[in-house]
């Protein structure tokens, strides 16, 4: 589904280019649960940003399905971004001014989903994550684990085929982390492609594939 060819990302400094990513070749099939591991600065987040179409400033080719991202028009790219990707962050990044319900609703609004359909999708998600009673609370009133559940609900509300997660459990203690990872596993079983960046080896165990990054290069690529 996703193919990266010779992806380079660098910053120009005075005497040389500093590479954040160098020569990344990567093919990801639909339904994979892939974990990117590596120390700080290895390029995990950078790679995730490129995969998620958030960063367009790189060299090399990125094919999504049959289409080359670079040859797509701005509007097509934005539509692809909207319909195919969901994002989860280490720091949850919920909108503080919105309730749980409204936070989950936001991507649906941007996708122009009709009101009745929106309601049923959100009801279903709230039910699934056992958050029906909390739907009118604001993020600040929730625990970290709960906030991340809302983050996941928001990410999958638009039914994306690919879920990108940048250190999703980084701010959580182990019991909460376990709960999140189990949710990921379940989503994976339902057919969602998941790509997560993580420090923790145990998170990789939930997935099907593990890629180790070091200094912007792929060190190892193994099936689990």
């Amino acid at each position: 589904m996703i193919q990266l060819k010779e992806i380079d990302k660098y910053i120009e400094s005075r005497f040389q280019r500093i590479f954040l990513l160098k020569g990344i070749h990567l093919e990801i099939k639909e339904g994979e649960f892939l974990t990117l591991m590596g120390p700080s600065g290895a390029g995990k987040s950078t790679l995730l940003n490129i995969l998620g179409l958030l960063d367009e400033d790189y060299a090399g080719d990125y094919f999504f399905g049959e289409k080359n991202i670079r040859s797509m028009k701005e509007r097509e790219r934005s539509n692809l971004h909207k319909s195919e990707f969901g994002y989860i962050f280490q720091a949850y990044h919920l909108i503080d001014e919105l309730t749980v319900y409204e936070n989950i609703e936001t991507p649906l609004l941007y996708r122009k989903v009709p009101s009745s359909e929106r309601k049923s999708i959100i009801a279903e998600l709230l039910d699934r994550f056992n958050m029906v009673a909390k739907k009118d609370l604001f993020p600040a009133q929730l625990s970290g684990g709960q906030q991340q559940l809302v983050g996941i609900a928001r990410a999958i509300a638009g039914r994306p085929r690919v879920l990108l997660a940048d250190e999703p459990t980084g701010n959580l203690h182990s019991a909460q982390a376990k709960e999140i990872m189990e949710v990921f596993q379940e989503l994976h079983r339902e057919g969602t492609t998941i790509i997560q960046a993580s420090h923790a080896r145990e998170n990789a165990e939930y997935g099907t594939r593990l890629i180790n990054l070091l200094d912007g290069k792929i060190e190892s690529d193994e099936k689990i």
Partner: protein
Amino acid sequence: MWKNDLKIAWRNLLKNRVDSMINLGGLTIGFFAVFLIALYVNFSKSFDKDLPQTEQLYRVNLNSRVSGKEMDKSARTAPAMGMVFKEDLAEVEDFSRLIIMGEVIAGQDDSFVREDQIFITDEAYFEFFDINLTQGSEEGIGQPLQVYLSENISKRIFGDKDPVGQTLDINSTNFDGTVEFQVAGVYQDLPTNRHLRPELMISYATLHHFLGSEIDNSYDWLNQYTYLKLSPGVNIEETTNKLNASLQTHHGDQLNTSGTEWDVDLIAVGDIHNSLAYSGEYNQGVDGRKLTYFVWIGFFVLVMVYLNSMNIATSKAQNRSKEIGVRKVSGSSRMQLIRLFLMESYLSHFIAILIACFLIFGFGDWVNQILGLGLPIDSLQLSHYLGWILSFWVLGSFISGIYPALLLTSFSAHKTIKGESKLSFRQAFGSPLLVVQLVFCLVILAGIMTTYKQIDFMRSRDLGLELDNRIVVRSPMLFVDGSGNYQEKMKATTGALPEVQSIAAANEIPGNEIYWKTEDFHLEGKEKSGVMYSMLSVGEEYFKLFDLKILAGRQFNPIGEGEEAIINQQALAGLGLDNPEDALGKSLISGRGEARIVGVVEDYYQEAVNSPLDPIVLNYSPGDLNYYILKVNSLEEMGNLLQKIESSFQANFPQSPFEYFFLDEFFDKQYKAELQFQKLFALASLVAIFIAVMGIFGVTSQVLLSRLKEVSIRKILGASSSSILMMISKDYFYWLGACFLLGVPLAYFLFTEWLQEFPVRIEIGWWFYTLPILSILLIFFSTALVLTIRTVFVNPAKILKSE
């Protein structure tokens, strides 16, 4: 979608209560000031413009020159002119004449009013100025001793009685007493935006009754306004030339013999209120240039308000960069985000406009009184301005909302979400904005100082006469008991109180124009010189009471032989004399007879120092005059003193109301226009300072926030607090320097221009260059320094840990 945006905008408003209050407060005060200025300018420009024939109506003005030297540009003309112009020129469809009566007392039985908006008018005036009779008929205007009343005056005098056909006593010095009139009709009250608003109109035939019908052919009696109704679409310049040709034909010979040149010009009736070009206007207008200044002030304030709104939106939105990022990641397009930011701008502007409107229409009268604008706020209708307010809202919110919206949404999602772009906005936007705000602030501060100094200068200038501790009591209503001479009675009773040092009667008091003007005077054996003299009748102790300086001769002597006159230096020059001594004993000849000059008095300001010194001829009158001026010991026990004066007055004139005022306060009223200007400036400066403080607060707190880490690291490396303070403050000096370099020349340019309007004016001195700058420094540092010091003494460990 927009519902969602609105909801978020509303929550944002509620969430950051302090920020919202500051923002809304700034917007509200700003809009309030701007609306008020707009209403005032709009009102001042609306005078006589809604008359049905306003396009065709012009007033004739008279410019007189003596041997090439301009003497006067007067709004007042002679009775013959209108009629002659209509006969000679086809394009003059009709004319109307109006004569000033000055202040009168009018009433019946026990019900009297004082009124100065009373004029003698003719039939055409009804048509020209859209006067609608509700009772009676227009026929009375052609008969002598008929009077028309406004509904307001009719109600005050007659109550619910039917006024038509009733008799009305009018007491005026012009009649030398009381004359009985008959009420011929009642007309609807005139709107406030008329350059003249007659409350009583006396029939023109009354003039013939008193002065004979030959007054219609007079060119000497320059005491009336002449209005012309011209054919639609005529060329004004051509018409003016024809008018002057006509004037030459009929009156040229007479003018030539006296060495005077006359020409007339026309002013559209709709422009009269906004012109100060002519002397002899009855009601004070508002100069068009002054209105332009007001518009500029309003514009300044508006720009400040918008800049500030942008500033707050940008600095607040920075803290929301995470939210912007999340929304972008969730699939929001840039347009949708811009819409969200605009929605917030629209919402806060809406609330601010609502409050500002409420303030204006709710507390209108109060504001009006404080500012002395004379704006008829009660009669303003909100619905009239709905369209304007709506477009103001739509445009203003867009202008002040679009820049932050565009700027903030231009950053890419993965950067904003990490908060990486925090620094860059402020550097790109904040400082220039702050400099602009500071420049405006400086200009307005300089303005308030200049206006204050100028007004203070005019008020404290030596007038040549003393006004302090002078109380003016209006003369008793003359016809109350019909018993002859009140001047003697006043002097013998109220004037004899131990607290009253002296008392003098006069027909006009300083601060009022002397309406009785004539060019009739000349010395025996000489021709009239064309100089316009003011005639003032005074009682015995007038000169002593005002501490006027007699340069030659003596004061009036009540037992002197024949008519005596005292002239001022201007009149002395007008008569062609240089030395005061030369004038003594000479005969001053006029149509009224002959008077011997017994004294020459030093020039003094009858009116405000920004009006010219007029030639004045004073004559002695032992009879009834309009005002009694009392010089009292001191103002310490004023309440007590006034009570004594009042009870003495009431005991002697039981049927007359006791009306008094302090002469210095009365004189100061002439500076109304300047005071108004100053007050408006004060309002603007309040807004400017408020906004500047918020701007300084916003910018410095953002800059400091962005340098918190740098400060922490420097501290760990051993920097002292003072060196850090120096380092941070360096930026401030760049801003302030830029502000002074731009602001001081701008202010200098603007206010030297403003001062040109005053014949006597202050010099722009050291204070102009230093005081505004010092004020700005004070404002700036009292705001910025608090914030800066807080940063300097921050605990570095805490900051760095959270990174």
